[in-house]
């Protein structure tokens, strides 16, 4: 086991943790998005609410969720430790700073991560916490089955401008985080070659723009729709 | 004092083998008890320290640099010779030996040179095993190129960075021994004096350059691999820190300095651009394979160029003087270094120089670009190519051969050498002279050895291209590990040398007094300004072309400058802190003495040989050697007023002394 400890405490080991958890979170982003897009189906929330119930009660999903929480936790804690460690390793800063070498994102992954974290807290407090641990949720009944009406909760939430703004900030941060993070994760794994790296970079840009944009579509859509209803 | 070269008996080709097989050895358990100090981590020093460490000696290694890897050897560009005969072109150990002796104008010791040629092949093997990325052919085998006026292709190279790669190889071997604890490395420690106990070299005094602290280091033997003294000219291709102090301090302790006046002036360097110039940059000799050297035929044209009113391209062919091709039709632009350098000086002295200062000639690639362009076009099946097309194709060929050199030139001068002729001028490059050593590389001080450029041993009056790297590594990897045994085998009963003896304390005090003396002068002129003035005197009176009158005058001027230095130099700061100005001052002080010895030696040598050109000894304007009177090594004992000459007569049993001719 000595080797494992040595590895996990080495700089490259720590980075591997970032990369793997990062990629795991990326895959989660896709799944989560597919589910959430059901909010846009104009069926009054039936499909979405059934999906939400499934996601909160199915034992396999529950198990996977624990993995997700651990992933976020690991990624966050390790990320913060790395940023702090690197600050120390750098020591003092230059009087003149330039933006010519290295993208802004790559130098501000910690800040972007914290923004995402802040957003996650708001997001989870708004839905996940309420859904799981309180009974503040409105209820609906489909075919005799009573369930929490997350659909309506989301609509209520997203009709508030300030919530939507927080979401947009969070998603812009996510986009920027991924603009660097996506391809960086592959380099960390050592996956770099002139034959396929350009493709990874392209995919990274596509992913970092498209996924947060689709996420952003949901609150914007709701906000506009609710506004139109008035 | 009788100089004993200690060359072993026997046939030339058998000497080293037999000697190696029969010399006294030090047993492994005894090696552990013997301490060796190695000063210098260039090719010679790093190779020696690593190998002695591998053998089991306790090595302490010193460099004034912040890391062993920064030694001046890192800058060597062109390549390293070895008699591998991989090209099957008739090379052999004998041929390399012969070329080196002849190239050195018959002023080196046969046996040493033969041994050098023998060791050359092992160096390549060793370097390859260390991971030195030499150039290779598509079949995966080592590539060679030809260099400097020899008829075989025996130069191994790593692009234009051969010295860097070889030094990093030696540095890696040294690092391995440091990690093992076999070598204790002292970076940023400058040797400021040699310590002798009972006539034997037993240690050194160093200054920690970060703190200024003086330390006494004792050992059974001291090996100096501290490089050459080309910086006595201030402007040279040597690194700024290269200096003579370690050798010179040893001279002050009784070691002899051999052939100080033998200096190599390299013909293809970037000319001086102004008074502020701090060092000169070499452009590899290989450029002369394709570049044509010329100056304008008339002084009027040259002056117009100097004023910037005309450019090289503006002069039609008939107004140009391709003087090397004219004077030496047989070798043309490929005459040896010393001949090419002097010819450039002659042209510039006639007022035909092509740079602002008047000191520069053209090295023109237009003809090569055109020639290559045409043959490329032909090969590509382009008939009647336009002149633009020819240029384009030709430039591509030139780029593939010399791209990195052209880039370097452009970085420094801001001119594009593909479009306009390069400007070059000779510059001091290498010093063949150095501490006198015998066949074992031991100086006349028992226990004090000298390797690499710091000794005088193998190049005679002129060094062939790609032979310094060979010599440094041969000395370090393959000679000293054996020959140091001839001294140490008799020391196995000597207990650890104490650094607490009166000799050590005296030496430390000597160093301290000297530094205090320098700091106490408190004059008005910077060290740098004295160094520049010394360099100017050296260049003007002891440079490419020397005569008795000038040398006498030069000597007087140096003495006067030395006096002025000790009255008016100003050194900021103190001795017990990081103080680069104090470091420089101590080095320049030594150069001010060496410079005088240089002039004295040049005056004594009334012949022209190799890099030493005496205007009094010429025939039809070409150098004339005088074998009857000067077939000796001049080994000097320093004295402030009258340096004493000791001669080691050179005997040649295997080669016939011939006049070099390149006409």
């Amino acid at each position, binding site marked *: 086991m000595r080797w494992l400890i040595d590895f996990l405490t080495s700089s490259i080991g720590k980075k591997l943790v970032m990369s793997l958890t990062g990629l795991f979170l990326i895959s989660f982003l896709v799944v989560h998005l597919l589910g959430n897009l059901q909010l846009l189906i104009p069926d009054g929330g039936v499909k979405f609410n059934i999906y939400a119930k499934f996601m909160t009660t199915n034992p396999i999903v529950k198990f996977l969720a624990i993995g997700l929480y651990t992933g976020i936790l690991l990624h966050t804690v390790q990320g913060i430790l790395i940023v702090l460690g690197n600050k120390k390793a750098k020591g003092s800063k230059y009087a003149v700073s*330039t933006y010519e070498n290295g993208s802004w994102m790559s130098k501000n992954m910690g800040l972007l991560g914290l923004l995402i974290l802040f957003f996650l807290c708001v997001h989870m407090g708004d839905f996940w916490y309420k859904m799981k641990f309180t009974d503040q949720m409105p209820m609906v009944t489909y075919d005799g089955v009573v369930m929490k009406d997350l659909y309506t909760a989301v609509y209520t939430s997203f009709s508030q401008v300030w919530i939507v703004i927080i979401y947009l900030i969070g998603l812009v941060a996510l986009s920027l985080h991924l603009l660097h993070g996506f391809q960086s994760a592959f380099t*960390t794994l050592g996956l770099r070659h002139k034959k396929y790296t350009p493709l990874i970079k392209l995919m990274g840009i596509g992913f970092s723009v498209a996924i947060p944009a689709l996420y952003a579509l949901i609150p914007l859509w709701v906000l506009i729709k609710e506004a139109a209803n008035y | 004092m009788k100089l004993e070269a200690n060359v072993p008996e026997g046939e030339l080709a058998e000497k080293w083998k037999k000697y190696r097989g029969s010399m006294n050895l030090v047993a492994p358990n005894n090696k552990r008890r013997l301490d060796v100090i190695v000063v210098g981590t260039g090719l010679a020093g790093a190779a020696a320290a690593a190998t002695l460490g591998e053998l089991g000696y306790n090595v302490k290694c010193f460099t004034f640099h912040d890391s062993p890897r920064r030694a001046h050897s*890192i800058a060597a560009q062109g390549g390293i010779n070895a008699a591998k005969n991989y090209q099957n072109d008739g090379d052999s150990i004998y041929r390399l030996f012969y070329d080196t002796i002849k190239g050195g104008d018959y002023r080196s010791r046969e046996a040493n040179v033969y041994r050098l040629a023998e060791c050359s092949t092992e160096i390549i093997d060793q370097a390859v095993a260390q991971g030195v990325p030499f150039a290779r052919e598509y079949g995966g085998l080592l590539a060679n190129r030809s260099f400097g006026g020899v008829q075989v292709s025996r130069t191994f190279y790593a692009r234009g*960075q051969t010295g860097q790669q070889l030094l990093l190889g030696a540095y890696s071997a040294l690092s391995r021994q440091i990690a093992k604890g076999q070598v204790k490395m002292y970076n940023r420690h400058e040797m400021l004096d040699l310590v002798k106990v009972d006539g034997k070299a037993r240690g050194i005094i160093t200054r920690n350059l970060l703190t200024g602290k003086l330390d006494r280091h004792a050992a059974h033997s001291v090996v100096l691999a501290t490089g050459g003294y080309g910086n006595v000219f201030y402007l040279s291709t040597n690194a700024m820190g290269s200096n003579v102090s370690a050798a010179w301090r040893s001279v002050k302790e009784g070691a002899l300095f051999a052939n100080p006046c033998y200096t190599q002036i390299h013909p293809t360097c970037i000319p001086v651009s102004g008074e502020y110039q701090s060092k000169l940059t070499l452009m590899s000799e290989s450029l002369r394979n394709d570049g044509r050297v010329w100056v304008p035929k008339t002084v009027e044209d040259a002056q117009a160029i100097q004023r910037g009113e005309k450019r090289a391209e503006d002069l039609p062919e008939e107004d140009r003087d391709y003087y090397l091709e004219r004077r030496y039709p047989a070798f043309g632009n490929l005459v040896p270094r010393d001949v090419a350098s002097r010819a450039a000086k002659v042209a510039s002295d006639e007022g035909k120089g092509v740079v602002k200062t008047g000191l520069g000639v053209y090295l023109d690639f237009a003809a090569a670009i055109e020639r290559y362009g045409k043959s490329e076009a032909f090969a590509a099946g382009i008939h009647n190519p336009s002149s633009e097309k020819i240029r384009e194709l030709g430039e591509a060929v030139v780029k593939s051969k010399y791209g990195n050199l052209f880039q370097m030139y452009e970085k420094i001068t801001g001119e594009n050498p593909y479009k306009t002729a390069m400007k070059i001028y000779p510059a001091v490059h290498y010093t063949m002279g150095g501490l006198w050593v015998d066949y074992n590389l031991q100086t006349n001080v028992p226990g004090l050895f000298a390797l690499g450029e710091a000794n005088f041993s193998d190049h005679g009056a002129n060094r062939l291209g790609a032979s310094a790297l060979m010599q440094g590594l041969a000395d370090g990897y393959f000679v000293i590990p054996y020959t140091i045994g001839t001294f140490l085998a008799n020391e196995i009963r000597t207990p650890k040398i104490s650094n607490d003896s009166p000799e050590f304390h005296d030496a430390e005090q000597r160093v301290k007094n000297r530094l205090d003396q320098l700091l106490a002068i408190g004059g008005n002129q910077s060290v740098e300004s004295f160094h520049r003035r010394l360099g100017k005197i050296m260049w003007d009176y002891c440079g490419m072309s020397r005569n008795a009158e000038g040398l006498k005058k030069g000597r007087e001027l140096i003495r006067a400058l030395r006096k002025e230095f000790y009255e008016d130099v100003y050194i900021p700061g103190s001795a017990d802190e990081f103080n*680069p100005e104090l470091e420089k001052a101590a080095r320049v002080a030594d150069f001010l003495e060496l410079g005088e010895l240089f002039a004295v030696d040049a005056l004594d040598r009334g012949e022209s040989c190799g890099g030493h050109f005496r205007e009094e000894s010429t025939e039809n304007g070409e150098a004339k050697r005088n074998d009857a009177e000067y077939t000796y090594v001049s080994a000097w004992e320093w004295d402030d007023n009258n340096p004493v000459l000791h001669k080691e007569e050179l005997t040649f049993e295997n080669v016939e002394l011939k006049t070099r001719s390149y006409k």
Partner: protein
Amino acid sequence: MKLTLKVWRQKNNTAQGHFENYQVEADEHMSFLEMLDVLNQELIEKKEDPVAFEHDCREGICGACSMVINGRPHGSQAGTTTCQLHMRAFKTGDTITIEPFRANAFPVIKDLAVDRSSFDAIIQAGGYISVNTGQAPDGNAIPIEKDLASEAFDAATCIGCGACVAACPNGSAMLFTSAKINHLGKMPQGQVEHGRRVKNMVRVMDKEGFGKCSNVGACEVDCPKEISTDNIAALNRYYLGQVFGGQD
């Protein structure tokens, strides 16, 4: 040309540093270091303390020169060391800010001079092939593919200047370390102890207090020898391969 220099002055490692302004009159053909020589000459003439900076070869190969010019190690010209930088890259009236390389593993010695011995420590951890003098087989006994030798060479051109660390916002030495590992590891001679080398050099690199690589890429931009960050990716790969496939 008239220039204003804003130079970092720091008496020694423990002293507090600050910027000092100087005016110099330079020539466009001077190298950057010759321009500093002019400044120092003037300071000495005024009996003031000259600016300490490291330099030796002044032709871009020894790796001694080290300073940050307007926020960029070795200045903003690509593939150029400070000593190769010439004043024609600046205009009269410019203000140039000059600072030392900054990283915890490179403590300041004085002014612009820093201590880079942590690099030696990394090499000592395994930046070599274990072969004693005299043990080598014939140079042509191991054929090496030309392209491979050339790739190894590209990595081997590192001059150990530390600009990569200075440029890195994390103070990481991955470019330097990976360059050496790739130089040796790409060739058959270096393969034998490749795994050990990778592990040990990374261990010491971490121990010396360098930061962790975030794949920012600043190192590559400011490396005077234009060493590619592909080397870093390859090191990651080797390291993971060694940990999950190696012997111990």
